[in-house]
């Protein structure tokens, strides 16, 4: 490895916050960080397929402008000079937003998503768009149109979805952070399967203006990054009311980073006695139990707690996303169903026969169920924690519905069981790496708090990361021969 490549690699091992601080202090330039990120993609992405379209010239021009500003003593904000890339469903003026689909392949938005604008206004550099599940509608990372995204810890395994490229790119150290979106777990699933940190805020916490809709009632915009502190900085930047999205909350946005003091003494951490551990893999359960011990050693108190109405939550959550997703896609499903991948058109189809009375029932019960949670759960605990997924990370082959893998349809539901329930409840939830399974794939757990308790769940996640190093581990990517045709994996380390 050349000295220049070694320095670039070292730069990409910084966390997002460390990179921000290095730019602020003048220890590194935005151009150097951007070149390092582009080099990382170039070297590693042929095997991972995390990127969709990179924009090196434009990104470097932006980096040069930001460096000139910094030399003049002006910093745009807390992300000044740091390169990011985002799931290809956030609209940017004049840039293709394919949403992982063939159908949206020619879409050129005429406006920019509020979340992207806020990140760029804070000084970040958008270097391109990232691979994702078609229309954000699978939990595995498969994509029939742009190629499957591969897990950096082992390319035969799922990245999780739908924010597959976001999870993989952050894990592989191609980028410091990325926007994902989460309707049934699409931030937290790739976070846990790729071994990074990801947070969805309270429903309404972040503007969805300029974000491809999947399910109006449960869509959330949020970040994936390496640490809870990184996520805190990104979430604070994008959260808050947006007049362009009247559904976004007017609740004030606190300084999430200020809450990260590592002190969880006396905090009550709920561990559900029902639903969330049904059929859980023994290795996942052991990693989760070990994580709770870490929090206990920090002074937190674990409390067994029953989460009410979980049968109903599980049923209602699946109905809402099916119906709203089907509604959005109805015209295309009539006119060009062959342009969807098999698993997506099949999944959408099921939504067209769900009775409206059941959909309305599912929507109308969200308030009463949340109130029951408020009294029966959050009256006893400050947060509750569960495995993010109950199983070990599955392979791409075992979950490939389009290829006819037996049991793959059922696997889709099983993967999202613990996450989609949280979307129905509308709670903030952060997924944190907490170990590796016997195959070397990551395991994660998720922490939920009351509505608008993002600071608290991040505080717990940060405290956990003070005593563990799972989030610091770096996957070793296989060597690749760059030549004509598809990349060839030389050796798996």
């Amino acid at each position, binding site marked *: 490895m050349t000295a220049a490549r070694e320095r670039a690699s070292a730069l990409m091992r910084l966390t997002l916050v460390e990179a921000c601080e290095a730019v602020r202090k003048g220890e590194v330039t935005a151009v150097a960080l951007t070149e390092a990120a582009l080099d990382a993609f170039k070297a590693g992405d042929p095997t991972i397929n995390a990127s969709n379209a990179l924009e090196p010239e434009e990104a470097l021009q932006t980096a040069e402008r930001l460096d000139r500003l910094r030399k003049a003593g002006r910093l745009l904000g807390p992300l000044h000079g740091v390169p990011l890339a985002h799931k290809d469903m956030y609209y940017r003026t004049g840039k293709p937003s394919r949403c992982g689909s063939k159908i949206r392949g020619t879409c050129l938005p005429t406006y920019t998503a509020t979340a992207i604008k806020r990140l760029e206004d804070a000084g970040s550099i958008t270097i391109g768009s990232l691979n994702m599940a078609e229309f954000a509608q699978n939990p595995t990372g498969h994509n029939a149109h742009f190629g499957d995204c591969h897990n950096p810890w082992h390319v035969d395994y799922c990245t999780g979805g739908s924010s597959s490229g976001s999870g993989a790119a952050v894990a592989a150290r191609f980028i410091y952070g990325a926007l994902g979106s989460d309707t049934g777990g699409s931030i937290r699933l790739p976070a846990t399967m790729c071994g990074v940190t990801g947070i969805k805020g309270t429903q309404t916490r972040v503007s969805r203006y300029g974000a491809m809709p999947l399910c109006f009632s449960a869509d959330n915009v949020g970040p994936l990054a390496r640490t809870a502190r990184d996520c805190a900085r990104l979430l604070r930047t994008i959260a808050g009311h947006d007049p362009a999205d009247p559904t976004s909350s007017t609740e004030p946005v606190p300084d999430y980073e200020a809450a990260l003091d590592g002190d969880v003494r006396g905090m009550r951490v709920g561990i559900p006695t029902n639903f969330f551990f049904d059929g859980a893999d023994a290795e996942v359960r052991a990693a989760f139990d070990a994580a709770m011990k870490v929090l206990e050693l920090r002074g937190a108190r674990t409390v067994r707690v029953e989460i009410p109405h979980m049968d109903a939550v599980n*049923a209602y959550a699946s109905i809402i996303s099916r119906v709203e997703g089907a509604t959005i896609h109805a015209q295309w499903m009539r006119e060009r169903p062959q342009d969807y991948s098999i698993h997506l058109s099949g999944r959408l189809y099921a939504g067209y026969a769900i009775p409206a009375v059941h959909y309305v029932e599912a929507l109308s019960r969200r308030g009463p169920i949340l*109130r029951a949670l408020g009294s029966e759960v959050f009256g006893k605990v400050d947060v509750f924690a569960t495995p993010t997924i109950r199983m070990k990370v599955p392979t791409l082959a075992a979950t490939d519905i389009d290829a006819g893998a037996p049991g793959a349809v059922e696997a889709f539901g099983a993967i999202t069981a613990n996450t989609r329930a949280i979307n129905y409840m509308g709670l903030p939830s952060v997924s944190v790496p907490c170990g590796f399974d016997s195959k070397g794939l990551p395991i994660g757990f998720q922490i939920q708090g009351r509505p608008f308790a993002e600071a608290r769940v991040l505080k717990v996640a940060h405290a956990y990361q003070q005593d563990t190093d799972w989030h610091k581990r770096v996957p070793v990517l296989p060597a690749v021969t760059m030549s004509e045709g598809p990349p060839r994996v030389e050796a798996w380390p």
Partner: protein
Amino acid sequence: MSMDIERQFEEQARFWSGIAPPNAVGHNFARELAEAVQGFERARGQLAFEDEPSSFEAALQETKERTP
């Protein structure tokens, strides 16, 4: 039961939305919804519709984290 669901879904999707089953996987996902139907059945009688207007957004405010 599963065949009945497939037939019902096919009729409903075509009747209300003019959408035909795109592939066999569509039937598989339709059968998967049997579990959701059972969830609805188990939830009956546990939660009532509220007489007064309310909303999920109001519940977010009512149950939110209070800063000291």
